């Protein structure tokens, strides 16, 4: 009955075993306690603290300021809307692609390479490429001009369209792979069984594949939504100063050294997104 903990069970002096667990957890705790837990607690502390640096007493004024101010609220709303649109776009593009990968094993390698390849390259490089592609005189607009005339040129850079397109490009791999994994885990037998029972390709997709891939779709959507809502590099670059998302506001406050305000904004973001992330983690671990 060998189990993972079998080696731990290996007969050795009781004292040795008692010390081992704390000893092994030391490195990790030495990193996380002072550099993650304490900073986060500090962050939460100053978000509810008064005074310039947030250490005086207890006040909810900052939250009131954030939640009462239309400027902040609209930034929050628009960030969430953008995240929603990104998730929807990723979903629309990923599901067919994942299904295609499922049905055509020979294409898997090249598609996965195309999905993962961009991920190992820094996002600034990818954004540089998108800036080139989506600029007013770039290839995308040139094609549009060719087809619909010069007046049809779209200003992608500096507007939400550019941000969302780029965001979808950056996050789609996560969604697609999550969905593909969950489709794969159901085994090829299931789709074949459905086909032998007379289901057409379309029916197989709608009634068998999609429901079984639901977990992957859930995980992917939550992941993409969170990553999109908390991203500030992509909107900063593609927005060219004309687009303001909530994370960007956090960055702005931080660079102006308004830590308590930045902290309050960050806490709002955390409170909104943490339940979502916890949901997706639970899903992952349960799988």
């Amino acid at each position, binding site marked *: 009955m*060998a*189990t993972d*903990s079998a*080696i*731990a069970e*290996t007969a050795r002096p009781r004292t040795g075993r008692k010390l*081992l*667990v704390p*000893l*092994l*957890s030391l*490195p*990790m705790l030495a990193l*996380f306690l002072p*550099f*993650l837990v304490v*900073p986060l607690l*500090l*962050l939460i502390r100053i978000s509810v603290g008064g005074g310039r640096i947030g250490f005086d007493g207890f006040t909810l004024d900052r939250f009131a300021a954030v939640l009462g101010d239309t400027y902040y609220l609209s930034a929050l709303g628009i960030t969430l809307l953008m995240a929603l649109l990104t998730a929807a776009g990723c979903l629309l593009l990923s599901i*067919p*692609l994942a299904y295609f990968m499922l*049905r*055509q094993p020979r294409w898997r390698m*090249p*598609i996965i390479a*195309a999905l*993962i390849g*961009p991920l*190992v*390259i*820094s996002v*600034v*490089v*990818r*954004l*540089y*490429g998108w800036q*080139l*592609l989506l600029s007013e005189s770039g*290839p995308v607009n040139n094609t549009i001009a060719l087809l619909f005339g010069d007046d049809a040129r779209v200003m992608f850079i500096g507007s939400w369209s550019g941000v969302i397109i780029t965001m979808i490009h950056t996050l*789609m*791999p*996560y969604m697609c792979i999550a969905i593909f*994994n969950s489709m794969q885990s159901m085994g090829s037998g299931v789709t074949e069984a459905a086909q032998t029972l007379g289901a057409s390709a379309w029916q197989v997709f709608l009634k068998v594949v999609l429901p079984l891939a639901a977990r992957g779709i859930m*995980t992917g959507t939550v992941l993409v939504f969170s990553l999109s809502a*908390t991203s*500030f*590099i992509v909107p900063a*670059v593609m927005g060219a100063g004309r687009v303001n998302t909530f*994370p960007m506001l*956090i960055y702005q406050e*931080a660079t102006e*050294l308004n*830590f308590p305000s*930045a902290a309050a904004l*960050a806490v709002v*973001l*955390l409170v909104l997104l943490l339940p979502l*992330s916890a949901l997706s*983690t639970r899903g992952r671990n349960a799988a």
Partner: protein
Amino acid sequence: MSATIMRAIGKVYACLMIVFLLSPLVVVVILSFSSTSFIAFPPRGWSLRWYDQLAHDTAIRESLLFSIEIAAAATVLALLIALPTAVLLVRHHFPGRTALRALALSPLVLPEVLLALALLLYIQNGLHIRPSVWTLTVGHLLVIFPFSLQLISSAMGDLGPELEEAGITLGATPIRAFWLIAMPVMLPSIAAAAMFSFIFSFDNVAISLFLSVPGNVTLPVRMFELANTTNDPSLSSISSVLILAGAILMAFLGRFKLFDGVVNARQ
């Protein structure tokens, strides 16, 4: 609709998607050979001037070295901490195990902005020190640690206790058995963990921006700054070099079938 037509549509779609996914990278590489000093696409002429300029660009070179240093330090630390943590979480059952695991993986769940802000805040108003190379390394370390941990834990889980037990029955102490048997067998996974940790640290922008050390910036940050100020294609050469490095890495991964690692690590 017949199956053949569906298949054809699927293939067209897949091709379009591949084009979509790779187009920003392709465009950059093409631009890097452009001869004009303004950005024109498609390029009006061809030249290697941007690579020549890159070779003489000390600022970029310094940033590149700096990024490599930070990534190397963060990677080594990540591995050193991930190994005992993996042993702990995979092989021992104790109260609080779930909580500890959640803590170890928390940087994956928390928004990077939040982590960066909290860390900056702590450094400035908590410890009252200036951001330094070490604080930057710690920031990177936090973000790359969960990937290392996942890869090594999964390798350890696959390994099972039997090999080390065999070593122990043959006379090796548990520690010796771990060192002589488990480590060599897990080496490919450890190497993969090292590789991905290095990449994610090297590529990181958010933490680097928040915790940047005045005077010494990482390559992505430098490029981020320059992208806003330069109007010529000069950034395309360093970008292409990075793209090439990425492509080589992908070829390497594909050869050794390590794709699952990236996929599983994020999830």
